């Protein structure tokens, strides 16, 4: 059956709108896609942690730099098992210096013994800890729910345990 102009127009209209809607609507918040009401959003993807923590080199540069030395001292390509093992050690880069800062310099810095590593290209990597994270702590008071931020897990947990000392809370919403 040959499509008449009218049918064709309907088809094109439907196709165009479907095509456009399929792209535009997610930007507005797409209706539920499955029984749990999962939604899709532009510029966002979700992965489960087990898949994400399997170390897979993401850049060609990293992959190209990986090599092994054979029994005669010559470079050879790494096997897939070796590649996985290397990638599973995020801090173990070839020819990388690793410093545990406990010298006098550390006394003048705020690293508190943070691990600092240096790559072959001079890149410095500072591994941060929970004490560098920003924590939000909420409290119920007569004035309403107040929220304040604390630097570090220790300070945040102290604020939860001792709300009476937490005098500079910033009130949320109706009173700050």
């Amino acid at each position: 059956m040959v499509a008449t102009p009218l049918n064709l127009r309907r088809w094109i209209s439907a196709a165009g709108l479907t095509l456009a809607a399929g792209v535009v609507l997610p930007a507005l918040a797409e209706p539920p896609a499955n029984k749990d009401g999962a939604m899709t959003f532009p510029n966002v993807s979700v992965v489960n942690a087990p898949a994400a923590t399997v170390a897979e080199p993401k850049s060609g540069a990293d992959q190209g730099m990986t090599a092994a030395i054979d029994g005669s001292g010559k470079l050879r390509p790494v096997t897939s098992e070796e590649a996985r093992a290397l990638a599973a050690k995020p801090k173990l880069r070839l020819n990388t210096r690793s410093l545990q800062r406990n010298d006098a310099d550390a006394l003048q810095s705020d690293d508190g013994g943070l691990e600092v590593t240096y790559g072959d290209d001079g890149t410095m990597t500072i591994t941060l800890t929970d004490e560098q994270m920003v924590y939000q702590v909420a409290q119920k008071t007569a004035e309403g729910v107040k929220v304040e931020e604390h630097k570090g897990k220790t300070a945040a947990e102290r604020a939860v345990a001792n709300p009476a000392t937490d005098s500079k809370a910033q009130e949320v919403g109706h009173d700050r």
Partner: protein
Amino acid sequence: MTAKSPSLRSLLVASLAFAGIAFSAPTFSAATIVIVNGNAAGVGFNDPTPVAPVGGNFGTTLGQQRLNAFQHAASIWGATLTSTVPIQIQSTFEPLACTATSAVLGSAGSLQAFANFPNVAFQNTAYGGALASKIAGVDLSPTVADIRARFNVNLGQPGCLTGAPFYLGFDNNHGPLIDLVAVLLHEFGHGLGFQTFTNGQTGAQIVAGIPTIYDLFTFDNTQNKLWSVMTNAERQQSAINGRRVAWIGANVVANAAAVLAPGQPEMTVNAPATVAGDYQVGGAAFGPALTPAGLTGEVMNVIDTSPAGNACTPFNAANALAVNGKIALVDRGVCGFVIKVKNAQNAGAIAVIVADNVNSTPPAALGGVDPTIVIPAVRISLADGNRLKDVLRFRSRTKSGVFTTMRSNPNLLNGADALGRPVIYTPNPFEPGSSVSHWDTSAIPNQLMEPSINGDLTHSVNVPQDLTFQLLRDIGW
């Protein structure tokens, strides 16, 4: 050829063009954010508890609504940022410290900082992982997520800020609940670089000699120095130099006037001479704005009455007589600011001064919403409140002899210095976690990256509502 052919062709072209525009749109919003769901089956993002859709969040399980909210916040950032390297946010809902009246809502931040990486503009300077990878053009640490985000899985349950769970809708209709999307936008902002790794309490850099990129734009107007070139002692002093530390990045400064409202509130005590002078004030988010011409009146303090006190209940006859036609001075505490001001208004006051009840300068703004309030209000510091109350001890029932003028300065932006540069939050005393890594609370309208999550935030991260993205542009986004 029929007469309909051109219209068909036009329709086809229009349809494809529309689709083409729609398809090409993502190329203008060039950052992908990956939410790494770290929860096990049945908990957190995977909690199967049935829930009703709320505020545009169509999730039908608690876990899915949480995940939708994370994605919604990430999508706002993804549509704004530009990067060829995906930004990974390792995310979990998990038990965090809490009691019935206090709780850790969540935490977030960079997992790593980098310096001296390829393409970097400033050597020997620490950048958060997401920004460093964006600048380098490669993921500098492929096996480690850029940002870690933990949120309290028990919030609102008995024994954990009981009855005050996260609001999971997208529509800002959170009422008294804590708006998770706003909290996420704020926390992701820190993870993307809206923070210094330098310790403002000690002045120490995270590694000696390595300032944070944030420090290269943080300028102390008193010392006339950037944070990056100060000594530790100078940074310590700067961190408590209230409203005198400004952000000088070009993008923020260029857009400040498009975001921040003009008319910084000011207050001058005219008499008696012992307390006369200019006082630092925080403006109010409610009520009418002060005018350049100003409002002058006699100040009468409200004598608290138990049990509510602090102007939290309708004024008794003595207080009503005292404040009628006058400027009421009330103490902060016990109830919200709008309740106090409304009670003073009902008693005939022409304006309200709220004296802080904690020692912190400069005074923060007064938050709250009440469209029925028609008189202006400001907050003054605890010390200034005590100064005024000291002379008010000698007032009669209807006169005090303390006169003040409250006005706005149309030449100054709310939340900016005299040069129009937004100011950084540097209260005295220092507030770990809040100081330096936020905008000052005097900003109007309220900004996403103030130390408090205010109820009137719009979920915007960019002009004309917000300056967060402009700051991120300054540091390299």
